[in-house]
């Protein structure tokens, strides 16, 4: 089996801890040899997942915890963000995400609509599981070892 280091953090599901996890992410990614740009992408993607989880906890009045797992592999970083809150309508959310299009009216723009879209744009692979709470699993490959990722890559054509 492929060997990897695993780092787990548990933080209260509150906005003030998003920055703490962001700093940890930056440290781990830096140690692995990700470039400055890639580290910035990781910081945004992981903050988005965490912001979703904390907002979710806030809405349901659930003063819970969010668990973040970092799988440090030779060629990639896998990050899992899990909250224990109730599930949400994934199909609806998927339908709602995407960049702003010129024919859209500004009034229709959703203030909170870009989080998941950014995660998909900035990471190489994203999976969301919605069975028991919400689990976001994100992968970013180290550039020099980039192999076999094209099939799963999400287009960021602008």
């Amino acid at each position, binding site marked *: 089996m492929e060997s990897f280091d695993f780092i787990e953090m548990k933080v209260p599901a509150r*906005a*003030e801890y*998003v*920055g*703490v996890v*962001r*700093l940890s992410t930056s440290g781990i990614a830096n140690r692995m040899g990700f470039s400055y*740009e890639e580290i*910035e992408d990781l*910081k*945004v993607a992981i*903050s*988005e997942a*965490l*912001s979703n989880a*904390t*907002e979710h906890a806030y809405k349901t009045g659930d003063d819970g915890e969010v668990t973040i797992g970092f799988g440090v592999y030779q060629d990639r970083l896998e990050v899992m963000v899990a909250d224990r809150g109730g599930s949400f309508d994934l199909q609806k959310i998927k339908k709602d995400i995407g*960049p*702003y*299009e*010129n024919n859209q009216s*500004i*009034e229709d*723009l*959703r*203030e*909170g609509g*870009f*989080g998941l*879209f*950014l995660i998909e*744009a900035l990471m190489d692979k994203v999976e969301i599981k919605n069975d028991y709470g919400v689990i976001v699993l994100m992968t970013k490959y180290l550039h020099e070892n980039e192999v076999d990722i094209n099939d799963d890559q999400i287009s*960021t054509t*602008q």
Partner: protein
Amino acid sequence: MNLNIERIDNGETQELKLAGEIDAYTAPQLKEALLPLTKNEGTTVVVDFEGVNYMDSTGLGVFISALKSTKENNSDLRLVALQERVRRLFDITGLDSIIDIESTVRGGK
């Protein structure tokens, strides 16, 4: 992991100078400072991003609200001096086509 907001009152032009990080924790603070400024008809609100080294979609949300408010109240919103990384989020999401954004850091600063 904080955001400093400095307000400079030049009459018709109201400037907010930001320094720090805009995320889920600091975005409500920004919204509270920014939205009231957009409610005055004829005002141009300039947001100076020079000191902002991190922003995510929670920040984008604040600027979407502010933009909507300028449309309702006949005011203007301009974002200036954005760092490349921060600018990129507006580009990826297509918001650069509806928000007035100036990336270049103005001279002499």
